[in-house]
């Protein structure tokens, strides 16, 4: 850890992308769980996630990025699911 004499003036960050190193997943008190069989791949969770914690590949939704998901529950709220069954549910307990 840097001491006060070593800090950049004005609390600047001069190393782009360094927020990747600051994992915020431990802040969760609720954890979103993806139920793939109820997922219609509408990507609303990906659009709404404020922390870019819905991973995708080949245009399809994948698992959550639990290193950065803070458990806000917006994805679960927005998820339309399939035939009345949510594809994302919030479980109590963060990790």
């Amino acid at each position, binding site marked *: *850890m840097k001491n*006060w004499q070593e*800090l950049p003036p*004005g*609390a*600047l*960050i001069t190393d*782009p992308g360094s927020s990747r190193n600051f994992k915020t997943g431990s802040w969760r008190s609720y954890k979103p769980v993806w139920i793939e069989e109820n997922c219609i791949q509408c990507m609303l969770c990906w659009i709404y996630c404020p922390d870019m914690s819905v991973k995708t590949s080949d245009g399809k939704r994948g698992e959550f990025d639990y290193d950065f998901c803070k458990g806000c529950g917006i994805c679960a709220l927005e998820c339309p699911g399939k035939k009345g069954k949510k594809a994302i549910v919030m479980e109590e307990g963060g990790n």
Partner: protein
Amino acid sequence: MAKLIASTGNEAVANAMRLANPDVCSAYPITPATEIMHNFASYAANGEVTTEMLLAESEHSAMSACIGAAAAGGRVVTATSSQGLALMWETLFIASGMRLPIVIAVCNRALSAPVNIGCDHSDSMGTRDCGWIQLYSENSQEAFDNMLQAFRIAEHTDVRLPIMVCLDGFITSHSIESMHWMDDAAARAFVGDYQQVNPLLDIGHPVSYGQLALSDMYMEYRKAHEQVMAKVPGIVREVAGEFKRISGRSYDLFESYRLDDAEIGIVVMSSAAGTTKDIIDHYREKGIKAGLLKPRLYRPFPYDEIARALQHLKAVAVLDRSDSFGSSFGPLYLDICGALSCSAQRPVLINKIFGLGGRDYMPEQGEQVLDELQNIAQGAPVRAAKEYIGVREAAC
């Protein structure tokens, strides 16, 4: 060529801003600072400055725009008063924490409620611990000179902190006084160009402003801020020395007036210091050794230097143009007490609250204070450590 002209404090401040030719000015009008922006906007409209003017929807937004523009790399100015400064309060810490050398002129005005537009120092005193540098001005000349020096102090590479130049609302901001203008070329050369060290718009060297620093880092940033503030007095003196060479006018951390051999003294800031000097001259003519200390650099407060200047006195009255509610003393008094707390020898200190909400500070008030100090110096007990003066009381 230096000219003697008649100017209000606000015109003087706007003219100093013109000479600095800022990149951005974002402001919201408020009495009695409105006229500064009124004048400066004319300069911008007439092409006398190349400043981008941003009219914000509030002072909170005005200061936020100043912060953004300063982070982007610009020289930035604004002006406000009273409620406007109070509304900026949240963002003041952001400007100082990001070490952005924004220059603001504050026409000191009372705070509501009750609504009042007259002068007192409640507004800027409320922001004294926001991490900004504060300079106080006695008259239009000092407001002009402080404003020019403010750019140099704030933008100094060892400092890079925002700065507040305070002048008394109406008393200084709107009164016409004779003052020395400065030659444009000399003033511009003195202020110089500004080069931001880490501008946001330098895409070759990307930086982020406004990071999170939790309990593992925050305290180190605060310690670093405290330490950079400690460098300010030296820079203020260095800039004042350079300013004297081009203007002939001397400035220091504070002004000592007939203080060296004084036995009793008054500490007071801004326009009231001018009135007090006259009173002191009258008392000196009567053979009474009275003196004055007028703080100029109030933040950071030059504790050691002020202690050395006051410790030989027998009795000192600190006149505060704002109160610190909570049965406490005025803010200036507390700082003076703090300055003298480590001195083995120190004067008896009393606190007077005066001139709130535009109430005139009359010579008789200063005379009564000096008479009281003389009694204390001769051994009389202190009647009241803190007292309002110039206020109506019920007859006992």
